[in-house]
């Protein structure tokens, strides 16, 4: 277990060294600019904009980081030949994959944590005080982290057998398709015969990102049900575990010579 933790810590350090957290500066500028500007050019939506823009930016920045770092996690190590040094020590291949996954999700968690502070600071600036419904923003942030878990595992899965460019294309495509998951389900319901079978299979196979997006609800101070929180958490963990297991299975059999 300590080997997994070491690999995770190194992955985190590497991401920080790659100046991944610099995106926080762009995020801070974006949010403070919007908080000040929107009050002057629109009507009555200052709080909404801070919540919508803040959470959307947290999500999109994280998605970009998850995809672009995730796809290089294995291939970069192979390119630099550091993978061989690691695997020549008593480190199992699955430990390497799991460590990389935990390291990347840890980076994204830290990133999200700082962005969340930014969102709440901007909210305090426009509303002058917090209200109890603001707590639902934490749930939306938690769902965004769950989204990152799924994306990191998918990026890692593709990275375990494909080139970085193709992995990026696959991961991003799945993110887009996953955002349309409910449309896909609707399409499956409307189809007949083989098409229905294929569409239903696709609808259940692709990750459902739309269920993890509650930004609109929390922006309007609507509560999120405990059931949704529980099911989304379980779903994200199950889906990530599935993708990580897939990555381990492929990587275990991959010829690294």
């Amino acid at each position: 277990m300590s080997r997994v933790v070491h690999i995770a810590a190194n992955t985190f350090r590497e991401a920080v060294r790659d100046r991944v957290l610099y995106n926080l500066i762009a995020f801070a500028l974006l949010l403070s600019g919007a908080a000040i500007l929107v009050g002057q050019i629109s009507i009555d939506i200052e709080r909404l904009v801070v919540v919508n823009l803040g959470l959307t930016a947290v999500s999109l920045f994280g998605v970009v980081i998850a995809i672009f770092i995730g796809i290089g996690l294995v291939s970069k190590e192979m390119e630099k030949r550091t993978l061989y040094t690691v695997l020549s020590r008593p480190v199992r291949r699955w430990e390497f994959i799991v460590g990389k996954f935990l390291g990347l999700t840890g980076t994204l968690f830290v990133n999200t944590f700082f962005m969340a502070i930014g969102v709440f600071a901007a909210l305090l600036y426009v509303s002058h005080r917090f209200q109890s419904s603001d707590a639902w923003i934490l749930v939306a942030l938690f769902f965004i982290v769950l989204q990152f878990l799924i994306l990191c595992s998918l990026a890692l899965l593709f990275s375990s057998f494909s080139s970085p460019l193709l992995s990026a294309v696959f991961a991003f495509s799945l993110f887009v398709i996953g955002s349309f998951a409910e449309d896909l389900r609707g399409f499956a319901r409307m189809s007949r015969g083989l098409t229905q079978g294929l569409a239903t299979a696709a609808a259940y196979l692709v990750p459902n990102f739309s269920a993890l997006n509650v930004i609109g609800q929390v922006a309007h101070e609507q509560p999120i049900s405990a059931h949704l929180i529980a099911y989304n958490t379980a779903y994200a963990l199950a889906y990530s575990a599935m993708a990580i297991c897939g990555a381990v299975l492929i990587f275990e059999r991959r010829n690294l010579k």
Partner: protein
Amino acid sequence: MSGLRKVTVTASVVLLLSLASSVFLLGRLDQMRTTATLEEVLYLNSPKWVRRLSLGYTGLLADIYWTRAVQYFGSHHVVKAKDYNLLYPLLEITTALDPKLIVAYQFGANFLAPKPPEGAGQPDQGVALVEYGIRNNPDNWKLYYELGFLYYVEKKDYAKAAEAFERGAKVPHAHPLLHVLAAQMAQHAGEIQTSRMLWQAAYATTQDELIRKNAVDHLRALKVDEDITELEKIVARYREQTGLLPPSFNALIGAGMLFGVPADPGGKPYKLLADGRVELQNPEDFPFVEKRLPPEYKPAPPKLH
């Protein structure tokens, strides 16, 4: 000068020159392309497609479209435009992206319904927008109030207005004024008292400064309309008694019909004309007055707050 220093100086100078030229060229490009070309284009006019392309981030996109609608209305309103072609599509997309954005229904309907130059002169679209809002937010009494208000003020359809207030009054936690308005509308629809009650309700049911100021302006205008009607009745009575028109308000005071020179709600005395009509001294102070404006009076361009 060392090689490195030479490169630094040259690159810095070229960078600044390029920046200045790009700013200058962009300015020229903006002049070449007319404002209308830039403004009147709605690249995607299908709410469904915009919703799909948002990848689930509909809230932020709705805020952007709402800001665009406000900017579009403001820029047209300030030049007293008669054509607001894009206003309804912009509001339609905004509310399709975020059906819970109540402010878009409330302000949007007030942008759409009034006649130009106050609004776009599209009361039917205003009603359609609020009805869509009610379908998506059936428990929000403010939308029923807005609907009744549109029917009463813009469409003069008192039966529909009463029906909307009645529907709103049944919503849980509805403002008690809705019950009163529904009853008043059914019995005294066209009366000035009903209008006053409606604008008082508009004032009482919002915290928004713009809506409150608008309500106050309307209430002041109603007071002027009421004053002028009353004063002209007194003038008519004086004429009946003396067979002459009063030369000034002093004649009416002398006859015991008035206690002093009557003044508008801003404190300026009314003008009594030779033909017995009563007018405002400064109609600019009362943008919504309907009675006895001087014949040469033309409303000033509306002020945006």
